[in-house]
């Protein structure tokens, strides 16, 4: 068995012991919780997606496939594609910006590491909505950034930064960056320095050492980070609503409209939700399979 250098893969391929009776007893609360709050709602959502819309709200118990026809209607498909693009851009930027940070923290001295990790995690202690509204204060026409730039006479008129797709991307990257940094850090921390030294000794330049040795060894962390950013970013609806001025509707907003907006079309919302859930499961299964393949 190959030396496991990273935590994620150890968890996946490491101890394949089956829990004994005591183990299952300890797991029971979590299993019940998962059944009640994850499985049951998903089943309800699945059932609702095949029903018809009620007159006032709610559902009428008659089977129909029109909700799924609606999901793949070009009107809504364009929103799905837009969500995928935004989530993809966010993931890419988070990866590009987060990997160096995670690497530096992972290779830093013991006494700095905890401090740096705290710095990454402290924003979580504030409400996520407040942090998003803080960006409104920074980016608006009379906001902090514009005032600063005008003060130093770098611009003569305020820049229109708020209520643009760019503002949405900034907000998304800001929200999800820690979710990329922490898993990669966890991988980097378990890197054995000796492997990198060996690569350099054997004549690999720093770039090749990075791409051929470090990146593959930290790939479980990268995979986890990508999943932790891409999947939630697909479902986001608050950040883009606030920072995009309601102009950048994503699939989360459409689903919200079906329940809390004018549409009052619960079955359609359920169909959208079920489709997303199936999509996520496929992505997760694929990433998981690739990780297992690397473990062979």
């Amino acid at each position, binding site marked *: 068995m190959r030396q496991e250098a990273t935590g994620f893969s150890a968890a996946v391929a490491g101890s394949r012991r089956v829990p004994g009776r005591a183990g299952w007893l300890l797991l029971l609360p979590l299993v019940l919780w998962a059944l009640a709050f994850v499985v049951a709602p998903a089943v309800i959502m699945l059932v609702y997606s095949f029903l018809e819309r009620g007159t006032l709200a709610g559902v009428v118990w008659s089977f129909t496939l029109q909700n799924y026809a609606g999901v793949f209607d070009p009107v809504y498909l364009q929103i799905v594609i837009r969500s995928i693009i935004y989530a993809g851009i966010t993931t890419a930027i988070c990866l590009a910006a987060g990997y160096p940070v995670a690497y530096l923290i992972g290779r830093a001295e013991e006494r700095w590491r905890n401090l740096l990790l705290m710095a990454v995690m402290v924003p979580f202690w504030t409400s996520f909505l407040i942090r998003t509204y803080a960006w409104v204060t920074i980016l608006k026409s009379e906001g902090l950034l514009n005032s600063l730039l005008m003060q130093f006479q770098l611009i003569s008129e305020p820049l229109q930064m708020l209520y643009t797709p760019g503002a949405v991307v900034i907000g998304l990257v800001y929200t999800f960056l820690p979710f990329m940094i922490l898993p990669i850090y966890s991988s980097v921390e378990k890197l054995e320095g000796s492997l990198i030294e060996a690569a350099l000794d054997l004549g690999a330049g720093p770039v090749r050492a990075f791409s051929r040795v470090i990146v593959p060894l930290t790939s479980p962390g990268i995979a986890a980070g990508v999943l932790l950013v891409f999947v939630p970013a697909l479902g986001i609806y608050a950040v883009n609503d606030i920072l995009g001025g309601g102009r950048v509707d994503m699939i989360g907003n459409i689903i919200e409209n*079906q329940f809390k907006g*004018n*549409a009052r079309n619960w079955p359609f919302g359920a169909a959208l939700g079920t489709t997303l859930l199936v999509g996520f499961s496929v992505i997760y299964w694929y990433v998981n399979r690739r990780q297992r393949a690397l473990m062979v």
Partner: protein
Amino acid sequence: MKRNPSLTLALLGALASLVLAAPALADEELNLFAWSEYIPQSVLDGFTKETDIQVNYETYASNEEMLAKLLSGAASYDLIQPSEYTIEALVKEKQLLPLDHKKLSNLKNIGKEYWNQPHDPKLAYSVPYMQGTVGIVVNTAKIKEPVTGYGDVFQPKYKGRIVVLDDALEIVTWALVANGLGQNDVTKTNLEKIRPTLAKWLPLVKVYDSDSPKTALLNGDVDLGVVWSGEAAILINEQPGKFSYTLPKEGAHMFIDNLAIPKGAENVDAAHQFINYILRPDVSMQISKEFPYTNPNVEARKLLTPAERANPASYPPGNPKLSTFRDIGPMAADVDKLFTDMKAKSGK
């Protein structure tokens, strides 16, 4: 253990006081389910002080959210605060209890014009709480030309300077009215007719905001918009002389938010007491002070200051063309689809 007479006496005394106090403990409660930021805390506290009825105030941010929670049956509410088109739908589905007008002595304070509205002509199921309009706000410091209708608002020269409500039904009805169609004539043919209008209007919009459109106007990110009258009234109160409010000449939407008692209410008597309390002029005036919409209580209007009465957003002058929303039933899904489509095609 030696029996302690004083202890026994004390225990008996405690038990007795509990039994005697029991009727007082069985105080009534009122489960109020209303819009967030629409009922001042002072009004609720005043009611509890006068009647000893505890008010449990839960909030929602849209009629549909209220319907979802009400119809799920998860909790029972005694009072809800729907808009007029929701009242119409609820009455059709027999989800409201008829009001006992004998318990509402202050109902006479409601203005005559509110007694014959299509959603509840005899106020059999609902009592108007606040009325408002949706109209045009202009930052007159930045825009000097007159802006009197939807056509004036949605001009290419105002591109990127407009805020509108994030409400599919609202925007669709503006387009209908601007094209000379009836505000409530929401049919598939009419929706297709207004598609080009929406294609022209939506790319000009900078911000969609139903929660607090005044924020974008105050921030200077936009210069004009079509928003709730209450938001405009607050702007005018906060920065007098800088903002103007006009009702669109093509025709404007008037909404009436009402108090009503849902079918499963447990504290029907307390609900009637609360409604009658709200109908008192001194109480209704407190609501107007904090939320300067149009007060349907004519006696309460007499208690406002001249400045408040003169606020054009709260009390629009003249005789404008106003109409309420009717319940459009399943067309709501088509409206949402058209709006989603046009919004997506207009942005990036």
